[in-house]
């Protein structure tokens, strides 16, 4: 950094500037830490979470951002503040990026993973008399519809895995009857729809593979894209969709969407990272490309393509 050092032969604490002695000391103390690791620079203990990193950065910015001293005579302290703030924002960015990639394992007590409500078909022991009572009630004209609906829902549950389309149909019937457990039914309906979509995604994947084999990139791209849309959790579909959309010269933004999806689903999939980086690069989004190339190089430090592309970014 130019200047700064030569001007401070005298003790900076005696420099005549518009700063309280305490503030001067605070600035000098933080400046002395700039060579240390990112955590220390931000005044944190290693291992803090992303939220703590952000808050520490914001708190420190309140003290060290030059705008907090707008219009004041700062002398050598202006350069110090700018230096400190730049280092703070670098530390914040590095740590945030690192924590984003690999969030620390949640502490035992603080998981807020939602446990999904059990999906019917509970195996709890049933009181036989209660069973009989229910059957008798079910015969009551007002309740017969309920019983019929329940039977349909149960049948649907059985068909769910093997014939989701059929299950969906049964659930639809149950719906028109107005079953007694609309919540369960809605959940099952959603599941059935998902299963159907998965099945169709399988078909689209096959169609995509066939087209890809004969080199029909347009058809392949469309089929893979449909597969990925039907089953957004399918990483291979998203990856292939991106790859073939790119090959079939579709708009880059479209290919990027799928590549991004592929990377989100499989962060550790080298080819997806490379593909996304390549697309971003072509779209002129160098900084994003760089991030993904760096991720790719973490997965395979020797990867030649990643290195080549990274050089293009720079």
């Amino acid at each position, binding site marked *: 950094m*130019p200047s700064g050092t030569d001007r401070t032969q005298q003790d900076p604490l005696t420099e005549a500037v518009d700063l309280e002695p305490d503030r001067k000391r605070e600035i000098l103390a933080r400046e002395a830490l700039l060579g240390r690791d990112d955590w220390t620079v931000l005044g944190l203990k290693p291992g803090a979470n992303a939220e703590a990193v952000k808050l520490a950065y914001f708190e420190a910015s309140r003290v060290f951002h030059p705008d907090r001293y*707008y*219009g004041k005579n700062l002398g050598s302290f202006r350069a110090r503040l700018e230096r400190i703030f730049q280092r703070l*924002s670098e530390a914040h960015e590095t740590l945030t990026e690192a924590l984003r990639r690999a969030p620390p394992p949640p502490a035992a007590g603080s998981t807020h993973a939602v446990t999904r409500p059990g999906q019917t078909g509970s195996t709890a022991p049933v009181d036989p008399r209660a069973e009989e009572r229910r059957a008798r009630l079910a015969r009551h004209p007002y309740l017969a519809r309920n019983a019929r609906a329940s039977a349909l829902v149960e049948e649907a549950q059985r068909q769910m895995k093997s014939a989701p389309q059929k299950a969906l149909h049964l659930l639809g019937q149950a719906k028109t009857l107005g079953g007694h457990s609309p919540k369960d039914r809605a959940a099952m309906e959603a599941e059935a729809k998902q299963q159907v979509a998965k099945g169709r995604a399988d078909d689209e994947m096959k169609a995509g593979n066939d087209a890809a084999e004969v080199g029909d990139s347009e058809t392949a791209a469309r089929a893979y894209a449909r597969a990925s849309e039907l089953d957004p959790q399918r990483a291979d579909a998203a990856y292939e969709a991106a790859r073939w959309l790119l090959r079939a010269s579709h708009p880059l933004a479209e290919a*990027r969407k799928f590549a991004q999806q592929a990377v989100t689903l499989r962060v550790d999939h080298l080819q997806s990272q490379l593909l996304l980086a390549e697309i971003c690069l072509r779209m002129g989004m160098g900084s994003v490309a760089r*991030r993904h190339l760096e991720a790719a190089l973490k997965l395979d430090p020797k990867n030649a393509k990643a290195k080549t592309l990274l050089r293009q970014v720079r």
Partner: protein
Amino acid sequence: MAEQEPVIGIDLGTTNSVVAIVQSGQPHVIPNRTGQNLTPSIVAVTSAGKRLVGQLAKRQAITNPEHTVYAAKRLIGRKFGSDQVRRARESLPYQIVCGEHDDVRVQMGDKAVSLQEISAAVLRELKLDAEAALGRTVSKAVVTVPAYFNDGQRQATKDAGRIAGLDVLRILNEPTAAALAYGFGKQVTGKIAVFDLGGGTLDVSVLEVAKGVFDVVATGGDTYLGGEDFDNRIIEMLVMNFAKEHGVDLRKERMALQRLKDAAERAKIELSELTETNINLPFLYTPPGGTSAIHLQASLTRARFEELTQDLVERTVEIVDKVLTEADVHPDELREIVLVGGMTRMPAVQRAVRRHFQRDPSKGVHPEEVVALGAALQADALMQPSSQVLLLDVTPQSLGVAIAGGYNRVLITKNTTVPTSVTELFHTSRDGQTTVKIMVLQGESELAHQNELLGEFILSGLRLAPRGEVEIEVNFEINSEGIVSVSARDKETGLEQSITVTASGGLTPDELKNILEAQADSLLEARISSEVQQKRNALTSAAAEVSALIPRVRQLTGSSEFGREALRRAEEVITSARAAAESDDLAGLADWVDQLERTRVLFVGVLERLGARQ
């Protein structure tokens, strides 16, 4: 403590401007002397030579189209020869002329007035409004500009302030200002996106907010996408229909064009509320020769209007997408989406945003006032040490230097939080080079001439040495005021040169290309990595190998059609590859090495087969 001098915030808009101030900790808009919150950004000179600003200027625009200047913001800080200005000239009723430094001027009567002066007239009007309302002199302001404004446009806006007698404390990005005003006093924590579609520009910003600190994560946009483009679609349609019906091109009629413009804007605004509107322009055109005047009567439905502007709406969403991707922000991470700018009242725009983000945009901000309120908040934050608001802003465009081969080497990438500084080592690019020219570029293109030239300087007195031996350290710095300074130092001698970038070059790409070509001998060269050097060596030896094979291949196959073709191709590859060896583009080099290798394999194969047969 004596009461501090008031500092105002000004949203200097393409169509309307707003002034605001923070009083007792609360920001509010200062109405102008006619009681309106919005002052049209219009300046006119009457035939009597009187200068009118704002509402008064707008009112007489129809009868005085040639001396009524609107949308000055689209032209400020641009070069006369630029594409944007050329395009604007076609649709503006007032006359634009070229200034001395290829800057844009407006012919008003017998004077060619600079855009800075036009904007200054608007700023002075707002200053007077504020002084009238506060009963005190006002001489300090924070002024907003679109995030996508380059350094030249920012400087020009600052100059306009100076001409108006305002010390511009800070140039603030409009979406950032909007976010400040939106987040102020609310306990919002998390990322928010601001979608600002105004009269002339689209700006998108993503900010992270917590406890009064506003951290800009990313910003981007399009300086040529705004409400006026939507108006123009209506104008085009009307002009086309009129031409079909009456065989008259209204675009040549300045007065008619001005009336069309007004009517189109009104129709557009009405269609945000209504599903159909009428456009009536009686006596729009009087044919020469005294025949009776022609009226224009048309109706426009919302559906038709949305059809006409569908691509514009789609483009807005694409730009949002690009900004989010660059920031690596997933739409799900956004806590709020704030819509700013009059154009966001259009239902189709709201629908597109809703569809894209799968949620409703935030309500409760006044889209036309929020930017000025944010500017006032930032002004207050700078002047009051007790303020809770702190803005961590970014540089909206990348900064770099031109390097040998006509490339741009970026040193500070866009969206870097300022203040910041970067130092990088470069080489001389030629044997015996004793001077280097440091050309400072702003923009995202890899090709130097497609960026904006911010400034240039020469570092001379370098040691006579072969190419690449003299090392030059280049330092880029953006301080907290947003001022860019660049210095270059000869590592060996400690010789240093620097500039503070103040004025903009704002050259057209062609001009810049010519300059770059003229300077080709004195540019810097990026340090060549060992990888590039290896590839270069590989390329040279592969080319030599293939060349060595050519005489034998010619001898054996030169008589056949295939042979002649293959030889011609091989020679081409060698020539191009040798030319490419000069570049330090690793991927390109690798490509040529591959091609040479393929040719070599082909030739060796041919020679083996034919050689064996003979």
